[in-house]
């Protein structure tokens, strides 16, 4: 199964406690929903191979605990991630308001600045919605993120969210190639290129 995998990607799931991070992940990896999922301690980890545009990508997904106290521990695992899913609960405004903190934390602990970010508004199956879809959209636009609303319970948008994210990562040059295939970004130095060609082609003196 691993043989034709194009690359292995590290994906993070972060967000306030109880917004449904683990449930989203469980829905994505096992296609199940457990209303009584214990609160995550530290970080948890799941693997899934998906195929995007005919490319197989192995995802190592790190699920994190949302509790304040764990935040001294979990950011260590941000290292080297290529994608992050930032989750809030559409029925609890305070989880939406805390998004800025999470982004700050990402910026501080992430080792790369071109990480692909996706914002997911979870629990849209519930009736007591507090955060409008447009607010989520606006926030995502402001911070150049992907955005989708989802429900881990009804399965809405979950698969799509992960696929979008992976596709975007694959499309971002230098984000995954260099690390996994040891193939760096080629420097396109025009001047150098010209000079080189000039030398090779134009002065055949020796």
């Amino acid at each position: 199964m691993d043989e034709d995998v194009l690359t292995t990607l590290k994906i993070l799931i972060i967000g306030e406690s109880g917004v449904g991070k683990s449930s989203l992940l469980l829905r994505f990896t096992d296609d199940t929903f457990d209303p009584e999922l214990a609160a995550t301690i530290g970080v948890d980890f799941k693997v899934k191979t998906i195929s995007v545009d005919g490319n197989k990508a192995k995802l190592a997904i790190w699920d994190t605990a949302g509790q304040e106290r764990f935040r001294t521990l979990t950011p260590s695992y941000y290292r080297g991630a290529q994608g992050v899913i930032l989750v809030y609960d559409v029925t609890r405004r305070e989880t939406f308001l805390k998004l800025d903190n999470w982004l700050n934390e990402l910026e501080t602990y992430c080792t790369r600045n071109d990480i692909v970010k996706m914002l997911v508004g979870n629990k849209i199956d519930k009736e007591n919605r507090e955060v409008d879809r447009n607010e989520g959209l606006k926030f995502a636009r402001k911070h150049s993120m992907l955005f989708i609303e989802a429900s881990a319970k009804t399965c809405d948008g979950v698969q799509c969210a992960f696929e979008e994210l992976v596709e975007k990562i694959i499309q971002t040059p230098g984000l995954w190639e260099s690390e996994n295939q040891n193939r760096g970004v080629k420097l396109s130095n025009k001047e150098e290129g010209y000079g080189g060609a000039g030398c090779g082609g134009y002065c055949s003196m020796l």
Partner: protein
Amino acid sequence: MAADSEPESDVFEITDFTTASEWERFISKIEEVLNDWKLIGTFSGKPLEKGIYTSGVWEEKSDEISFADFKFSVTHHYLVQESSDKDGKEELVEDALPLPMQDLLCMNNDFPPRAHCLVRWYGLREFVVIAPAANSDAVLSESKCNLLLSSISIGLGNTGCQVPLFVQIHHKWRRMYVGECQGPGVRTDFEMVHLRKVPNQYTHLSGLLDIFKSKIGCPLTPLPPVSIAIRLTYVLQDWLQYFWPQQPPDIDALVGGEVGGLEFGKLPFGACEDPISELHLATTWPHLTEGIIVDNDVYSDLDPIQAPQWSVRVRKADNPQCLLGDFLTEFFKLCRRKESTDEILGRSAFEEDGKETADISHALSKLTEPAPVPIHKLSVTNMVHSAKKKIRKHRGVDESPLNNEVLNAILLFLFPDAADKLTDGSETRPTSSAGSNPPPESEEYNLFSQFKSAPSDSLTYKLALCLCMINFYHGGVKGVVHLWQEFVLEMRYRWENNYLIPGLASGPPDLRCCLLHQKLQMLNCCIERKKARDEGKKANITDRSPGGSSGDTGKAADHSGGDYQKETDKEKEVGKSWESWSDSEEEFFECLSDTEDLKGNGQENGKKGGSKEGGKEFTNFKPEGRLHQHGKLTLLHPGEPLYIPVTQEPAPMTEDLLEEQSEVLAKLGTSAEGAHLRARMQSACLLSDMESFKAANPGCCLEDFVRWYSPRDYIEEEVVDEKGNVVIKGELSARMKIPSNMWVEAWETAKPVPARRQKRLFDDTREAEKVLHYFAVQKPADLARHLLPCVIHAAVLKVKEEETLEDISSVKKIIKQIISHSSKILRFPNPEDKKLEEIIAQIMSVEAIIARARSLKAKFGIEKCEQEEEKEDLQRFVNCLLEQPEVSVVGAGRGPAGSIIHKLFVNAQRVATMTPLDEELKRSGSADERRLISGAVADFPPPAGREVILRTTVPRPAPYSKPLPQLSVAGEQARWAPAASVSVLTVPSFDRGCFSICGCEMEPQEPFSSDT
């Protein structure tokens, strides 16, 4: 083939290629390539704009074909033009000349500064060259040349291709080409003659005109006028009074122990030799008609001062020796060393041993004579090192690769706090220097996170620079190994004696920095905790035995070198800092085993409390380890205020540890058991927090804990009770109520133990030893690789700093490129050597550019220029010289720049004539040279290059033929050019009724056509 597959068919006509010769196959391959590149047919094109050959983009396509087993490369060179040019087939005037022939007459692009030599000679916008594929191969024999020429002639004829096709003959360095261009009814032959010595009649215009006319053999009289373009090139090599200002630093002085011009922590910069070797002045007469000027072997009107156009180019020294570049390259070489530390030091130790046993008498005298005790100026720490070093290395200080003075200077630079210690005579408060001067939030400062190096004021960064310098000036790799050993010893000393390492930001390792920096920070964390623990232990002793066992306290105080007072101060500070949530770094965690004798009533009570189920029952032990009250929250049952406990800090991690740990966690797999085990492994921190919480809040329950720890898992609802009052009722969330979930489990096992008496979550002793071991096993190559990002970072900063003095826009751009390039390369572990070399090469090229700018500025005397406006013009001129292959001089010989150049030549001439070099004079034989000897000192030396383009349009071969362009190019070699100087003569020939071309080119010693 067809016959083979269908034997029954009655096809009689079989085209048989089975006997096709190699030659035929070669021709068909040429045709194939021309077809593939779509060069077949007629193309129209706009007349060439002025200067388009320089400003436009040239591209080339290559393919390989072979003649039998001899490989040729076919290359199509072309000026990129708008696509519309190639669609204009319909508009063609019927008898228009093929485009290349029109280009021959176009005068807009004479003498292009940078172009293929064929472009320079024939003014072509497009052509194909067939040359031997291997550089060493050459087509030498005449019959082979003719065979190739015939091949292309047939190929062009068969395909109707109008693009000129050339064959490179003879050795490649001679740049000999023959070629052909065919159009409807016309044909141009491009030929060349390359002479070792220029015949006298070709050194002046009138002689060349005579040859041109005779070669054309035009039947018309009078001949149509010949238009002439002339360019004379003068070379200036002696700069005389403008000495290259920079001297290489005095290495001997440095080796002698005096740290001279170069301070540690700084990188050198600049070229050690003049990066500008020559100035070439081209004086051009672009449009002359025959008869306007006289230029023969006795007299010439071509006075360079009078030339209407002047242009200048500078010849840059190839790879001038630049200090920064050398530093970088040498340091990078370290990365490839294979030896381990022991191999490098051990070998020399062995040699020494051998020497000592051989010379016993010497050894004896050494023993008997009172050896001078090495006095270390610096610090206690130094004493310890040297002692250890001696023991370990079995050799004297004076024989180590680094002498003491240099070593001490470096150590003082790296550890400025050691000097404080020395002057105070006692330990000063260890200050974390990074904390005392807050890092500026500038872009430059933050470069370290892009490069994954270390902040520019950090110990790691300084160490990198010192190693870089030692590698270059003080004993190379041995010196590096020596300093590193000293450094590691210092680290151990600091760990063992609780001295914090200076120059590191406090807090957990910064994952944005290089691993070595993280390791140092880690070590500092360990020292900090050990120190706090040791101090806490002492404080405990005094706390718990007030006046009782004063002996103990005294001992402890003595032990710590009389800084007891300080420690109690420290303790006060700790107490203060506990008031804030985030600053609680100073708490200490004692191993349980350590506290056996200290078990107070709290501990016993704790045990009692802990034994009760979940702590739900009211207990009355004394609360311990409280940090502060949590808002207005009260415990659910006793109703007392809820306190946030002092907790253990999570273990600091370096990136390799993190990697290890995530690997372990990931290895547990994705099964339910795996997840459970993973949670359990990480629950130590949760358990510790729970224990601290229980200790701080006697009688608390899980709900209380959850309200602090995970507030959203405590759900409050307004309920109306039986009396009709609205009561807020709360309960744990569903997920917390899952039976035997990890939280409940942990809560049940948690005993009320304050953080200070819990088992340490972070074993600083073990981690510190791990770090120190890691340091000890680093080979010089490992070390260099660790620190290379810091060195590159420093080099970029240095280049940036130097650039701001010169303000060269192109350099700014390149620096930006270097930064973005490096940040892509350096952020990943183990970047490829090739890419690192690229970065270093880029930095070196920037250094060279800046050095050239400085050299040119000095030569053109910009600093001395008084008029502001003129100064600006000159500045612009110099910048153009750096960036463009050729710069035209405004006002030619009369402009401000022109007069400076004139003066430079005059000065050079004066010196040359005052001290004539006999040999050169004997060798010379040209008219100019004779004039020079005869006394009249010319302002300019004889031209090193003389290029003449002659053009005319005549009907050939008969007077009634169509008038067709004729062109000839000639140049002259430098007068003292060695045998390499050559000349080329293109002899016309033609076929059926048309047209030929004569090019004569005698080139100067150095090719002017293509400097990069």
